[in-house]
């Protein structure tokens, strides 16, 4: 007869091993890139999982080369600007969707849904042509504008779901005290909505950080190319060395912020994705 105690410890063992399987599946491909990034150029052709000899050479190489540092700065700048614009615009629209009665709301939500499942390639050809004629091609705004558009729908969903949970009596109280709807929005609701805005900002930034198709299509030099796109254009330090080590090191560098983000904001990201994107 199994006592209650042994049942729970058996359960613990079961969950523990399931957790371990999941962690190993996630960790191995990532550790492999880390390992590659520390291999010496000569050891790249050694298929063993860990390097025999560890080196910082690949990191020194990419962090002193403008073919990676400039794109890294582009990624940070473009990501931050696009995220700020998207979150501000999305907060305004989400407030209206969650709180106000106005015709066209249904159309807006449907349009946002359409964009969120939209194939980006369908926009690459026309945007390439339009941006070239407007001299936006290969500039920061040339990437910021499409990133805002693709970040908006997700941010609107998350924020609208978030706004519906805010205690709106406060807003009414403010309007009773003589505040205009605009004042009620900026003075009362925006501060309460800040956590939702942080959540959507994280997710929009992660989208911008990850984006590849626009980044290679709408840029031609490192003046606007972002880090993921730069990876694909890496070459070895001489034509006889493969760029494997530098690419792995660059991949690790652009993964570090993501790992910090998900560690610090795990709860927010999970609640944002589960509450905002889909409500079954």
């Amino acid at each position: 007869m199994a006592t209650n105690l042994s049942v729970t410890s058996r359960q613990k063992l079961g969950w523990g091993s399931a957790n371990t399987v999941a962690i190993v599946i996630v960790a191995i491909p990532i550790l492999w890139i880390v390992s590659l990034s520390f291999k010496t150029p000569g050891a790249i052709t050694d298929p063993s999982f860990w390097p025999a000899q560890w080196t910082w050479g690949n990191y020194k190489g990419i962090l002193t080369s403008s073919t990676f540092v400039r794109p890294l700065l582009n990624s940070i700048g473009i990501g931050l600007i696009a995220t700020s614009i998207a979150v501000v615009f999305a907060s305004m629209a989400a407030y209206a969707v969650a709180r106000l009665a106005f015709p066209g709301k249904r159309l807006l939500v449907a349009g946002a849904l359409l964009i969120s499942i939209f194939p980006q390639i369908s926009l690459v050809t026309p945007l390439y042509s339009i941006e070239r004629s407007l001299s936006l091609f290969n500039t920061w705004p040339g990437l910021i504008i499409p990133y805002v558009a693709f970040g908006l729908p997700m941010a609107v969903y998350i924020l609208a779901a978030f706004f519906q949970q805010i205690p709106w009596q406060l807003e009414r109280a403010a309007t009773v005290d003589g505040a205009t709807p605009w004042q009620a929005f900026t003075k009362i609701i925006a501060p309460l909505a800040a956590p939702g805005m942080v959540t959507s900002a994280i997710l929009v930034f992660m989208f911008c950080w990850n984006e590849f198709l626009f980044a290679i299509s709408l840029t031609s030099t490192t003046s606007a190319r972002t880090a993921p796109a730069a990876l694909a254009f890496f070459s070895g330090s001489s034509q006889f060395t493969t760029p494997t080590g530098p690419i792995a090191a660059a991949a690790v560098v652009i993964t570090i912020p993501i790992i910090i983000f998900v560690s610090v904001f795990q709860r927010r990201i999970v609640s944002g994705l589960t509450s905002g994107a889909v409500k079954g």
Partner: protein
Amino acid sequence: MSTSTKTVAAAVPEETSARHRKPRRSPRARSERRLGWLLCAPAVIVLIGVAAYPICYSVYLSLQKYNLAFPNAVKFVGLSNYGAVLSSPYWWQALKVTVIITIFSVALELVLGMALAELMFRTTIGRGLIRTIALIPYGIVTVAAAYGWLYAWTPNEGYLSALFSNSAPLTSTVPSLAIIILAEVWKTTPFMALLLLSGLAQVPGVLERAAKMDGATVWQRFTRVTLPLMKPTILVALLFRGADAFRVFDNIYILTNGGNNTYSVSILGYDNLFSALNLGIGSAISVLIFLCVAIMAGVFIWGFGTKAPGADLVR
């Protein structure tokens, strides 16, 4: 709700005279509508400027003979670009590859994502840790992960290739597709799991306990209680991931760059623009891809009755 005009200034007086049925709107209701439009205006302008207008422009371009190498030879050619694409074996090969990748990766992700969602939901130890770990593939840059897979499967360089007697799977079609699907599944299963987690959290625990009291096994409780209640969430997750998988680009670009007949429709469209510089054909491909995704969404929403996300935001 049927009138959805976006012109703020002119619409307000017209509305009051055109709608006799509704009682006169109070000044407060009117200012509320005006504020609603004003607050949505920036988002709407961006969405129209970056999505709606380019798609229309794309339709226009797709009707032109337009090669960037010969910018002065632009002329209207009607539907002949579509004829050229639809009669080309490249398009059908790309569509086949895209559909195969979409079906296999989404099916695998549904099964694995459900398992991961159950784990994230029910595990009694390390719940925060497992959620954080699961978010890493979701957040990691696809291109960075794809390089990891590429080098892992490169003969004489990669541990996975060494594991399979130094094979070179990325040099033939079927193994390449399997690796592309593997890379997609590894990267996006956590996203699927998170979407499913929201449905799982809404299944009333009372029902499962009741089924347990009645003697249902774990598997019966899952298939007879949890799954039916999660159907709406599963449909939405399938729609989102299906549409996402259909535009697969990053992994293929890095792993094979479309070699060995592994190009998807997105890779084909990209190549037509940047290698062939053919805006007309490239636009026709773009429009066709858009139609495919629109049809997929239509089937899910009207065919299977998928409740569109955000529907509950509009009451």
